[in-house]
């Protein structure tokens, strides 16, 4: 056996093959003029990069990339071209010179820098030997959650995640400001008109939607142990609602999950997250310091068997804090994704024309 394992093995081969696939797909997106093709290729790009991320030992990111890139992004993009136009015009080649120069400059700087970077997989590079390793060593004792990514995401860098939830909320606010919230005068024809062609879809959807929601909950609560967490679960939950809207019509879905409810839930998620932080602060800790989530006299009363035996008793606050903030993430992400979908789907081409005339 060699003294230091190199990465020149099947992993590297898979890595390079997948990256070449990414490059080919990106090249195809550059070349294509059809927007529909570009969107489908973008979905493929996301899926391939998700696979690549698994090879790179980042299953959480892979999961997110798959649900976001190939899921939500594609839906939103399709909604957008439905409301605009499907073909991009080809410009004059002379107008490509300046962009090409900019790109070559940026690429040049990147490659210049890349030559100074440590080799792929170097365990003693500053990134892997300093803070990253410190998390792996400290997390089991500090947090007590097997998935270190979740521990860092929700606790060590919980404030970043708070910011991330706020960004999503801001996106919901932005889309609602642009496209409005609800059904307009003209919506897609009610489902009956579509006839009996869709009976298979409806039956399958009825079967699938509860399963998808259940899976979302699994992802949510499994986030401590494996890949998953509030964000992925939120997108999957939103996917259940979106599937309902696609199959049964937007009007039906909006009757069940009204835009107002979606908006409120989005705010509620952010408030829940902030609230956990404020409670920690009230109990004498710093913002989001889950060790202070329960005042000491309450913590003593909690029976040890509730969460994996007495040895994890000092992780009580961390466990509950992470659970609560992940719930906040779930609420905000799911509700915002639904709001965004409503924004695009609730706007028909007729609306667009009417708006243009006004």
């Amino acid at each position, binding site marked *: 056996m060699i003294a230091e394992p190199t990465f020149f093995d099947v992993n590297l081969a898979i890595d390079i093959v997948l990256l070449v696939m990414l490059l080919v797909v990106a090249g195809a997106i550059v070349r294509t003029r059809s927007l529909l093709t570009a969107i489908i290729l973008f979905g493929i790009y996301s899926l391939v990069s998700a696979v690549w991320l698994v090879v790179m030992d980042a299953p959480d990111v892979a999961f997110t990339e798959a649900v976001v890139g190939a899921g939500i992004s594609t839906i939103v993009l399709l909604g957008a071209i439905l409301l605009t136009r499907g073909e991009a015009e080809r410009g004059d080649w002379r107008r490509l010179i300046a962009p090409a120069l900019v790109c070559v400059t940026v690429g040049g700087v990147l490659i210049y820098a890349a030559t100074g970077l440590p080799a792929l997989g170097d365990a003693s590079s500053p990134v892997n030997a300093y803070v990253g390793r410190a998390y792996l060593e400290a997390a089991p004792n500090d947090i007590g959650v097997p998935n270190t990514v979740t521990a860092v995401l929700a606790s060590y860098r919980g404030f970043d995640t708070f910011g991330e939830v706020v960004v999503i909320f801001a996106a919901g606010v932005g889309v609602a400001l642009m496209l409005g919230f609800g059904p307009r005068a003209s919506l897609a024809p009610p489902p009956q008109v579509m006839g009996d062609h869709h009976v298979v879809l409806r039956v399958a959807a009825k079967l699938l939607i509860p399963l998808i929601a259940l899976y979302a909950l699994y992802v949510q609560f499994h986030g401590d142990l494996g890949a998953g967490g509030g964000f992925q679960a939120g997108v999957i939950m939103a996917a259940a609602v979106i599937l309902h809207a696609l199959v049964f019509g937007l009007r039906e879905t909006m009757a069940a999950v009204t835009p107002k409810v979606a*908006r409120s839930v989005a705010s509620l998620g952010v408030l829940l997250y902030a609230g956990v932080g404020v409670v920690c602060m009230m109990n004498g800790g710093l913002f989001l310091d889950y060790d202070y989530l329960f005042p000491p006299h309450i913590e003593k009363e909690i029976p040890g068997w509730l969460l994996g035996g007495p040895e994890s008793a000092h992780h009580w606050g961390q466990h509950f804090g992470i659970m609560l903030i992940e719930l906040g993430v779930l609420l905000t992400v799911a509700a915002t994704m639904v709001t965004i979908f409503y924004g695009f789907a609730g706007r028909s081409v007729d609306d667009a024309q009417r708006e243009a005339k006004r």
Partner: protein
Amino acid sequence: MISFEALHAAPPALTAHAPMLLVVGPLIAACAAAFAPTSRTSWMISVTGSIFAAWMALALLGEVARHGAVDYFMGGFAPPLGIAFHIDAAGVLMALLISSAGVMASLYSGHALPAEVRAEKHTLTQAGFLLCQAGLLGMVSTGDAFNAFVFLEVSSIGTYALIAIGEKRDRRALPAAFNYLIMGTIGATFYVVGVGFLFAATGTLNMADMGARLATLGDSSVVQAGFAFIVVGLGIKAAMFPLHGWLPGAYSYAPSLIAIFLAATATKASIYLMARFVFDVFPDGAAFGQGFIAWVLAPLAGTAAIVCSIQAVFEKEIRRMLAFSSVAQVGFILLGLSLATVAGASAGLFYLAAHALMKMTLFMALGGLAISIGARRLDELAGVARDAPWSAAAFAIGAASLAGVPLTLGFLAKWRLVAAALEAGQIWIVAVLAIASLLTLLYIGRMIEAIFFRPAPAGAPRAREAPVGVLAPLWILAGLSLWFGIDASLPEQLANAAGQALIGGAP
């Protein structure tokens, strides 16, 4: 001298958490505003949230004066594992600036919003405004390079849509917002790439830790590329010449609430973040850093000051004039910072604060003038001083300050820049400042001439004076311009401490 040490603005229990409350307060208010049942309630929440942030900034001012820089560990984890907020004297200056600009803009919005935005969008507009404010406050107070990116995006994402809702008055707001979104996202992503390179070199994300480790590491291609990407990325967000293409459109067509707030704060927060990277994180002796400041940053800033002033002179739409003027003034600020001396940095920061005050006055006065007539172009404003004397007078004060008329804040600010440049022996900067100031006088002259001395076109609708709700914040700002022009001890003291903190490495 004013003693900030004695300033106990908030009870100790709150002061201990002030760095976090400064940011989280407006965020919670944003959620509440999105919930609010009526436009009026959301306005009240917006004012409350902004005032709360300003209150926390004041509390921090006392803390920083007493103990030096304040650190706050999010989640109780000390850096480099956790995210720390780090607020020094310069950070307090920025926090005070942003939060008080927020208070003024939100006060103003009570009357201005109904005239410019559809009623059903008021609550969300206020929510977006608060999000933007919280994001900017987070950017200036965080000590973590990646956390700064998150807050950069918090402040940007809402802003894009807020600029776009200016479409009700002028549909060009939409392409302007889209353009800003593209450029802003490229800027933010460049910043992330740059932080990634520094992360690769140091293994940490905490800015102080990064600086300490870079100082021992020395120069490498990775660090240089990180520097380049961070400066270009933040330069886009700061409208640094020649990366300012998005700014005129964004400022011109946004609703006046947003234009006022952005003109006072948005580019400044990015400038400040960039200054922190250049002075605090990058190693002092690094040749490429010095060379960059002397041969790229300063010349570009000088070019911006002159070229964009010329563009402002020839512009027809009044808000675009002010926007080009903003890019030119960003050049002034960067000139001061590029001196890399304590005097230069404090002059730059003083100019930054002064410019925020006067641009806010100008945009708000313009909002007041334009509320009743919806004017865009300079010639449409002909003679409005007759109908709206109070707004016009405040506009004149702001304009005088921008031009650097003695006895205004703007004069002092320019004076300090000149003094710092002379002290550093950079005569050419003085020359650039002189030329740019002359050009400023030219376009200011055009505005004043149109508003005060040109007769209104026959048969034009008469303008009305702005309501009291607009005049009150407007005249507070104009009054401050005058007051500080006479007795500048307060801003001077803040700026001196800030310059010390930024360059001297003093606590």
